[in-house]
């Protein structure tokens, strides 16, 4: 099987490539990227005026399977990913049961083998049932295939325990992803603490609850000489702390989510629970700091924090509604609209934050279009506009913070392992 | 809105009110137990003028009240045209009184119906008599005026505009085409 992608602007920062080229895919690999490839192919994609980038790598998604298949499944999430140009996902462990044992990981591996439409890597739990009391068997989890560990959704409050986890993870060479939240400081809050929380009469989540915990985790990582990855950075102080730590040489990476660089606390003044997530939408200065952090490279990756919930869990009183928004299908378009069109990132840097950077964080040989690489590719129309609508999602859930928003950038094709996996009805089904 | 005819000027209006004052006194045999209640907004001013007219003739002060019938209307939506609900001000007991209810124009009779309902909630007058400056016909309810300044036959697509010194800066009545 030969696939020829003709005349697109091919962007591959790993190989310092940004020019109009043809890309030839043979089998599951990219065989060459050159001008005017003349070669018979089974399928030719005309990519004139399109942008050809490595498939996105999302470091943070909740697939909900096993346990909450009414919200999302491996199948539905990976189909949503393909629509968003995402070809690799790191699945968070807060499933039911949690990914806290090699057996549970094996169970999920089985589902992934059966249903996944993209690469799905598993993030194991740090503590049993993510309760923060007893460490999981990190070595065993690693053997079962996990790439990273995290108690995402909760933080590990016990310092000693977390320190142990860092040392163990270092030995096993698995990534530690930190959900940084001091729950004593976040005080059961539901929106950003400040004028907005007071105005709405809601409990606020302080910025301290995030950045104080980031400080602690960095400090522990330094002591353990381990590397950590900070999930969903949302406020200005966090970016500053991370910048200083990086300068000091701490092995540290971090991610930010599209909603945190495109929406602010003022967007939640209508009590729309589709804008309720943790960490919450912050102030305008924070949004600016996240954008600047992405520009400066202090923030290494853009991750979706895709968190599907049913309408029953969202169309209720704001305080009772679940935290989290879906993001796989909008992460690229929001990033194009806000960051590329907004002059924050050029295309190569966007690829660094969404494909190459996250692939490196996970130690994957992905996020590039070099000859010999696995053909995970997205072909994007960068100018095409669309409106986010409830009825348009492939995900099982519709809790998007961007409903009604006009976005720029549409994924025309997603190629995974050399096969056109999206659009779904392309006639070359696997 | 085109003005078709000026049917009363200030002198004619003054003569009409003066005549009505005489008629009220004649019919009620003086001012005993007499009180006047005007319907907001122009009826209230006319009520005041009638009371002054009566005082000129008979030398007696009679009580004057103001009725705001907004809350007695049977059509909430029509109220949107009304700027603000104003107070009803009747500071005397109306029971056993002869009440002269005053409005500027008598048309369908619905306003008077509302006014009667409201008045009756304030007590039990001996009689209620109706005085209007203009009767333009087209009644939708069995209501008639006891004292009329001027009968003006009109068509449904005309309106009668009563302008008063207190509200409009001059006294006159005109027929206007809708």
């Amino acid at each position, binding site marked *: 099987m030969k696939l020829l992608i003709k005349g697109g602007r091919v962007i591959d920062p790993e190989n310092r490539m940004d020019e109009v080229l043809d890309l030839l895919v043979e089998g599951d690999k990219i065989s060459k990227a050159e001008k005017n490839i003349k070669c018979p192919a089974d399928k030719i994609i005309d990519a004139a005026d399109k942008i050809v980038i490595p498939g996105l790598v999302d470091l943070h998604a909740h697939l909900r399977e096993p346990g909450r298949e009414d919200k999302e499944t491996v199948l539905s999430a990976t189909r949503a990913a393909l629509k968003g140009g995402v070809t690799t996902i790191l699945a968070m462990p807060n499933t039911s049961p949690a990914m806290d044992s090699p057996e549970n990981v094996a169970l999920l591996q089985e589902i992934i083998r059966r249903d996944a439409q993209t690469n799905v890597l598993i993030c194991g739990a740090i503590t049993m049932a993510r309760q923060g009391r007893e460490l999981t068997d990190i070595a065993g989890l690693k053997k079962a295939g996990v790439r990273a560990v995290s108690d995402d959704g909760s933080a590990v409050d016990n310092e000693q325990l977390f320190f142990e986890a860092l040392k163990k993870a270092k030995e096993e060479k698995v990534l530690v992803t930190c959900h940084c939240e001091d729950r004593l400081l976040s005080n059961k809050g539901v929106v950003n603490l400040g*004028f907005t929380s*007071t105005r709405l009469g809601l409990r606020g989540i302080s910025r301290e609850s995030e950045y104080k915990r980031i400080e602690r985790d960095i400090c522990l990582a330094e002591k353990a000489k381990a590397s950590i990855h900070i999930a969903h950075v949302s406020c200005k102080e966090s970016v500053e702390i991370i910048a200083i730590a990086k300068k000091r040489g701490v092995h540290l990476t971090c991610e930010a989510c599209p909603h945190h660089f495109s929406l602010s606390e003022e967007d939640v003044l209508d009590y729309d629970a589709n804008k309720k997530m943790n960490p919450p939408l912050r102030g305008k200065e924070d949004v600016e700091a996240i954008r600047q952090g992405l520009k400066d490279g202090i923030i290494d990756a853009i991750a979706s924090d895709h968190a599907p919930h049913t309408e029953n869990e969202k169309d209720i*009183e704001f305080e009772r509604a679940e935290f989290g928004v879906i993001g796989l299908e909008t992460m690229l378009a929001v990033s194009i609209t806000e960051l590329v069109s907004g002059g924050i990132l050029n295309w190569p840097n966007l690829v660094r934050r969404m494909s190459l950077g996250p692939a490196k964080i996970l130690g994957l040989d992905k996020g590039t279009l070099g000859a010999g690489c696995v053909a995970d590719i997205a072909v994007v129309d960068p100018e095409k506009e669309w409106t986010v609508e409830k009825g348009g999602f492939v995900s099982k859930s519709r809790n998007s913070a961007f409903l009604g928003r006009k976005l720029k950038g549409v994924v025309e094709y997603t190629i995974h392992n050399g096969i056109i996996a999206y659009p779904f009805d392309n006639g070359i089904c696997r | 809105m085109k003005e078709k005819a000026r049917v009363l000027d200030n002198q004619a209006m003054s003569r009409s009110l003066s005549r009505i004052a005489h008629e009220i006194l004649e019919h009620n045999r003086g001012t005993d137990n007499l009180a006047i209640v005007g319907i907001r907004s122009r009826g209230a001013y006319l009520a005041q003028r009638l009371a002054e007219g009566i005082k000129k003739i008979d030398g007696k002060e009679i009580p004057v009240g103001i009725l705001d019938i907004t*809350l007695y209307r049977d059509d909430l939506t029509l*109220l*949107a045209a009304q700027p603000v609900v*104003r107070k009803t001000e009747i500071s005397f007991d109306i029971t056993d009184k002869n009440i002269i209810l005053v409005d500027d124009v008598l048309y369908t009779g619905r306003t008077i119906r509302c006014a009667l309902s409201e008045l009756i909630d304030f007590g039990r007058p001996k009689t209620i008599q109706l005085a209007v400056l203009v009767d333009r016909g087209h009644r939708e309810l069995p209501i008639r005026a006891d004292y009329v300044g001027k009968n003006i036959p009109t068509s449904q697509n005309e309106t009668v505009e009563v302008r008063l010194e207190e509200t409009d800066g001059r006294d006159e009545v005109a027929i206007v085409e809708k």
Partner: protein
Amino acid sequence: MTWTRKDLLGLEYLSREEINLILETAESFKEVSSRDIKKVPALRGKTVVNLFYEPSTRTRVSFEVAAKRLSADVINIASETSSVRKGETLIDTGKNIEALKADILVIRHNYSGAANMLAEHLNISVVNAGDGWHEHPTQALLDIFTLKEKLGRIEGLEVVIVGDISHSRVARSNIWGLNKLGAKVTVCAPKMLIPAGIERMGARISYNIDQALENADAVNVLRMQFERDNEEAFPKQLEYFKDFGITRERLKRAKKNILVMHPGPINRGIELSSEVADGPGSVILEQVTNGIAVRMAVLFLTAQAGEEKK
């Protein structure tokens, strides 16, 4: 100025003109309550549903009296007896009430934003009778009405609100409303009861009640609920009364004719002394009377706008 909103959700959302219209309308309605027959047919044939998820006798009764004086039919639903406990969602409950062909839904809810949510999902009028810590617009309107009635104006007045500002919807609505009408508002409480960013709503902050009262024309004393939240920082009752309680001694140092208001029910000896509650400056019972006029005006105006939108 005509009223066009089918709902009343909070004073934050209203213009100065809209607030003044409600106050003017309420003035006319106050006269109705002084008649022998305290009833006008304005809302005859309309149905008002009081949906209360929090126990509240006085607000519920006030709305009920207001609706009845307008000749509306009133149905009271309290959370203990409704299907709330059976897990029906608020929106479903609202839609059921709408299906009963009710015209106005008056809602009291312990969650902030509940009234906003219902208003968005329903075509009938929604009147917020207090939602969480968010707003209690009719209470603030009656407070402002009383101030205006007693002092003749709002513009330029200095009003102190003392008590648990953090958890008070009454404080929030008062701050919005008074600010829009040109009054100066100072909130006064121990630091732990002052919510973040309140100054951006237009309130000055004071931690010293004696200083705050110095130039005040009125003090609005909030009800203190010491049983409220064990998990949160809260002052001790005795300490609070010593530092912030409104006593005759304290008022002696304030303006001579300072008005004392309270949204009720009052806790004698907890946030204010009995002497003050029953004293010459207290307008607490007049607030209750005015509450009816204000709620009549709100029901009348929202019903009228709701009718327009049908």
